[in-house]
């Protein structure tokens, strides 16, 4: 299935235009292909694709597949959160089309519950911290979570190892 991104009905970036404007330079005159270095991408894409195709009642009850809107929103969220070295998270489906992104490492735990687009509950706990962890309610700005992920779900740098 091919899905287009343009809302314009008639302009040059849509096939079947009526104005017949030809883009110069041609948008795809040259395609540069670079290796995708993000370690999490492939795993996340595979998991999301599988979760959006779960059969009805997949959990033995009334569970429905992860909704496409939640899957797409999750991709955009992870693009804003994860660096190229971030380890791939686990993705756990909810029963109502929602999903949870989870990292569990030696350094701590992060859980991002995507209830709906722009409606995310975030939680993290550091290993050795006896508190109940830290919680945030987020919409479209995940700047705070980028630091959590860097601390918990990315490899320790050489400098940090030396300092430790």
């Amino acid at each position: 299935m091919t899905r287009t991104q343009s809302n314009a009905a008639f302009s040059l970036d849509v096939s079947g235009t009526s104005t017949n404007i030809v883009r110069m330079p041609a948008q795809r005159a040259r395609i540069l292909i670079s290796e995708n270095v993000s370690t999490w991408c492939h795993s996340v894409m595979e998991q999301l694709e599988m979760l959006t195709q779960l059969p009805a009642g997949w959990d033995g009850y009334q569970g429905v597949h992860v909704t496409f809107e939640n899957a797409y929103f999750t991709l955009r969220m992870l693009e804003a959160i994860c660096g190229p070295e971030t380890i791939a998270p686990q993705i756990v489906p909810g029963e109502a089309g929602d999903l949870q992104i989870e990292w569990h490492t030696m350094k701590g735990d992060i859980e991002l519950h995507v209830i709906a687009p722009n409606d995310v509950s975030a939680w993290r706990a550091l290993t050795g911290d006896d508190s109940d962890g830290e919680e945030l309610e987020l919409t479209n700005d995940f700047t705070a979570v980028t630091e959590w992920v860097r601390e918990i779900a990315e490899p320790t740098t050489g400098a940090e190892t030396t300092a430790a």
Partner: protein
Amino acid sequence: MKNDGTRPNYLPDFRNPPLNEVVLGVQFSSPKGYQQVYAGEVWNLFRSEFPRAEEHPAIAPAFETFGLPSKGGQLDFATGASHDRFWFLRQSGDELIQFQQDRLLHNWRKVGDQTNPYPRFESMINRFHAELEQLQDYLNSLSPQKLSINQCEISYINHIAPEMGQIVKASDWLSFVRFSNSEPEDFSISFRERIRDDDGKPQGRLTCETTTGIKPDSSRIIVMKLTVRGAPKGTDIESALQFLTKGRELIVFRFAEVTTDTAHKKWGRVK
């Protein structure tokens, strides 16, 4: 929110703007109880004014998110069966409604001899408001619900064309380019900027894409597409209309900034 039809007097204004197409749109959660087989019933809501229909591939969900620097939207995945996107067109073809299970859009464009007047934003948004209410009422009849709008977008697409036979000199029209010696054969330039809500939190982005193009008569033009997309403050229709109204103002101001005084004279700037 019923727009009173008055254009705010603080906005830049042009007698003959190079506007070729305007798009107002919202994206919403897939409605409960709705299936593609009901698309004809949705068409019936608008059919008296939009009697022609076409089928097109669906637009993928789009979300503006914020965090690490990212180009955004680089990853996509294939899914199974999907709803088509339907165009419901007026007989004249100058306006249409686009509908798919998670979007409603209203387009205006120039057609024919390109002299049909732009109905102006105030008129368009009032009509779009009515269309959203109609759709919401219909979906509510399938299963009690309101539209849950998660993203809004507004686009202004301008075709900037010199007089017939004249060359396209970018610096005559665009204030942010200056080619010192000779004009490039063609170019494509884009930039994005964050837009923020009243609390200073990122709410969406304004994107400006400018590229050269060739018309059917082989003359060259510059196409400038300005889009504001982001999340409304709430998921209701009122919040969406407020976002679109704000987006329109940002686009109009930015358009005036990125185009030259020379161009403004040609387009008859009055404010």
